[in-house]
């Protein structure tokens, strides 16, 4: 009489259990937050035993890899930038975080600027990052505020909740090993070997849904209200922690053709209500003269490295105006 299950089946189970155990121990951090869709509180922020904090590219948050001391040294002026793809740029060195650090250091300051900017992050997910940033004693938090990612915030929130439900369709993906395989497959194999056009069916549906949603005045109103409330919460966090907060208002390029281009941030006028001694507002459009828009913008929202450099200069000027900078050489 053959056995109910064979030795090969038990070997399969053993291999699977071993792989799962490895994932839950060795690769724990790289998988953190994979199915929290950016809503995991600490995903990507790895506090090591030696007192160092590593920012990692994890399943849930794809930070630019950076590291810093958990306890900010007294002589270091620490700036943490929380934002979306506009603030993120193409690298730490080429975004305004990197330029700001270079400009501060050029003034003789021992400055450390850290980018916590992540693509597609709207107010709710940025607030989670502000909360984390405040744990590491920054002197200033720069919060890049925009209204272009509220759809994604909402979509990812729904996905997170959907995945967290007990629905049988997610049972397999509760295995860390299978999660890793799934993300390796979609990001490393599909993402790097196949052209975007081949992978667009799902992306196309998302873009279409966003397009439809962004034409719905009721949805826009809800998003604006939520962004306002959540940003107020972020401001309160910073104020309560005694950390200075600089809000950078995203400006969007509007108009047809270079000669007609203008910058618009009218949807963010509400941020000025947060202005206080420890909260400053910087309108991004004040950093960019209208005749240079073609050279500074990649598209309607994202800016070129030169744009980042100019924005860093404006931030530096604002810090100076607000007397938030320590004396040079300190």
């Amino acid at each position, binding site marked *: 009489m053959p056995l109910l299950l*064979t030795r090969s089946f038990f*070997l399969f189970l053993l291999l699977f259990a071993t792989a799962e155990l490895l994932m839950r121990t060795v690769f724990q951090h790289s998988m953190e937050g994979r199915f929290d869709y950016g809503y995991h509180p600490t995903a990507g922020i790895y506090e090591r035993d030696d007192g160092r904090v590593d920012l990692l590219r994890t399943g849930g948050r794809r930070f630019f890899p950076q590291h810093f001391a958990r306890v900010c040294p007294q002589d270091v002026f620490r700036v943490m930038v929380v934002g979306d793809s506009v603030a993120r740029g193409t690298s730490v060195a080429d975004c305004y975080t990197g330029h700001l650090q270079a400009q501060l250091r050029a003034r003789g300051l021992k400055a450390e600027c850290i980018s916590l900017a992540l693509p597609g992050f709207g107010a709710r997910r940025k607030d989670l990052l502000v909360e984390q940033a405040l744990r590491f004693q920054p002197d200033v938090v720069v919060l890049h505020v925009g209204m272009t990612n509220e759809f994604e915030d909402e979509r990812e929130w729904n996905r997170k909740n959907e995945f967290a439900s007990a629905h049988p369709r997610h049972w397999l993906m509760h295995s860390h090993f299978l999660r890793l*395989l799934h993300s390796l497959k979609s990001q490393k194999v599909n993402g790097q070997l196949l052209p975007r056009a081949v992978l667009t069916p799902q992306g196309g549906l998302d873009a279409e849904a966003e397009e439809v949603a962004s034409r719905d005045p009721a949805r826009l109103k809800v998003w604006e209200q939520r962004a306002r409330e959540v940003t107020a919460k972020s401001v309160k966090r910073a104020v309560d922690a005694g950390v200075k907060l600089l809000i950078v208002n995203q400006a969007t390029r509007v108009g047809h053709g270079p000669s007609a281009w203008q910058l618009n941030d009218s949807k963010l006028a509400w941020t000025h209500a947060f202005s206080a001694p420890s909260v400053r507002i910087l309108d991004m459009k004040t950093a960019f003269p209208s005749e240079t828009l073609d050279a500074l913008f990649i598209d309607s929202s994202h800016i070129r490295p030169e744009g980042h450099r100019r924005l860093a200069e404006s931030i530096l000027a604002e810090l100076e105006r607000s007397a938030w900078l320590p004396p040079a050489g300190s």
Partner: protein
Amino acid sequence: MSFVSWQYALFLPGVALAYWQLPHAGRMLLLLVTSYFFYGTWDLRFLALLSASTGIDYYCACSMTGVRRPGGAVLLTTLLPAIWLGCCRLVNEATSLPVPWVSGSSLAVAAAFPLLFTLAHEWIWRWEEQARRRAFLWLSVLTNLLVLGFFKYFGFFAESLVALLEWMGIQPGWTLPQIILPVAVSFYTFQSVAYAVQVFRRKVEHPADGVTFAAYLAFFPQLVAGPIERPVSFMPQFLTPMRWQNEYLREGLRLLLLGLFKKAFVADNCALVANHAFGSQGPTDAAWAVLGVVAFAFQIYGDFSGYTDLARGSARLLGFELSRNFRMPYGARDPSDFWQRWHITLSTWFRDYVYIPLGGNRAGSARTVLNLWITMLLAGLWHGASWTFVLWGAYHAGLLTLYRVVPPLARLGSSSSVLAVVVMFPLTLIGWVIFRCHSMVQLGQWFAALSVTPSADAFAKPLLWLVLHILPLLLLQALTRRDQDEAALGHLPWAVRGVIYFLLFALSASSLVAEQEFIYFQF
């Protein structure tokens, strides 16, 4: 309910557990109920069609075996589809439940059908035995073909006629009805036809109780896309009470895993490239044209043979053994060999019920070629109501003819050289281009793209991607190449099998995304 869905992952073990707790009669009833539930998840209305077809075949088969059922029972049983449709309509109108609407004309046809069938049944029973048996055979066969013809081909032929008339300058001004193609209709009607013929030939024992027969015809693992089973080997499995064997679980799980791998990893991934190449823009250059068709070749193979493995695995858990449908088709040496490896149960059906009755190869070369063409054109049309499928059938008929009448090709096909496979594979791919294109215009676009020189940079990465998704399947097949069953792994050492199971599962899980429909469900 797709085989690759969480619903099915709960449904199948539930059915299997309940099944083995019941006595034989209870098992048949359970199979019937669960099969109708399974089929009803696509469209509740078409349960009426399935049950109508079952009713006709059952009473015709009873009559062919000399068992006369009372007219009242025939009328009441065949009225069930109409009652079901009426209930669907009532529920649709009275509640917000997701039950589809049923038109008045459908209800009228469903109500008229039992009367007509009962009258025909009673009338034919007055005939002498030989004529009666033959009449019931034709009644069963023609009703099934009528159902298939109406639902699958009416729209196609009507539209073609309208197009022809318009081309001739006549504006018919007809409003053609929009007919929904019921899932699986091509499969279960062919199985029904085969059943009627075998009962007529006294080759199969017809069960006395309707439940067993209905469970046989609606058996959920193979209802939707085959394999198209032969009653001679399949019906006895319903008539003989089975006892649980541990083998059932082991073989069932192995087949389910293989099927999942072929569908989720091979087919659904290859679909990304194939859908892009055959999308609305068409392939941009020769590289994408070739990549697209190679991807489609492995998509359709992984999809359908994966479905078959899942069907066989599901059936095995219930103690049934379904036919093999594939045997490494891309290793074929000639077109005839290809059809002995691809969708075997369909090709043998056409061979036994079309080609051989037409005379097969017994009436000279010219007649053989004509028989081949008729068979292949019908096989093409079976796949879908479209001229591209007819062309696909004609293409394969042309290949079969060429390999038969051109001596070097015939010699090549009958040799065991690798060259034969190397020549046959591209020919198969051209067939898949015809099969995949929705229209002649798209077909033209594909061939036009072959003349556009590709950029090597843009080609290399997708090619590597495609190889990564095909290679595991080819390696797996290399391991089982000596076996008749391409899903057999039993001869390998247990440790190797354990590692293979692990890899297959891991690869499948890496690609499990939103539920993807099986290609052959549309046929």
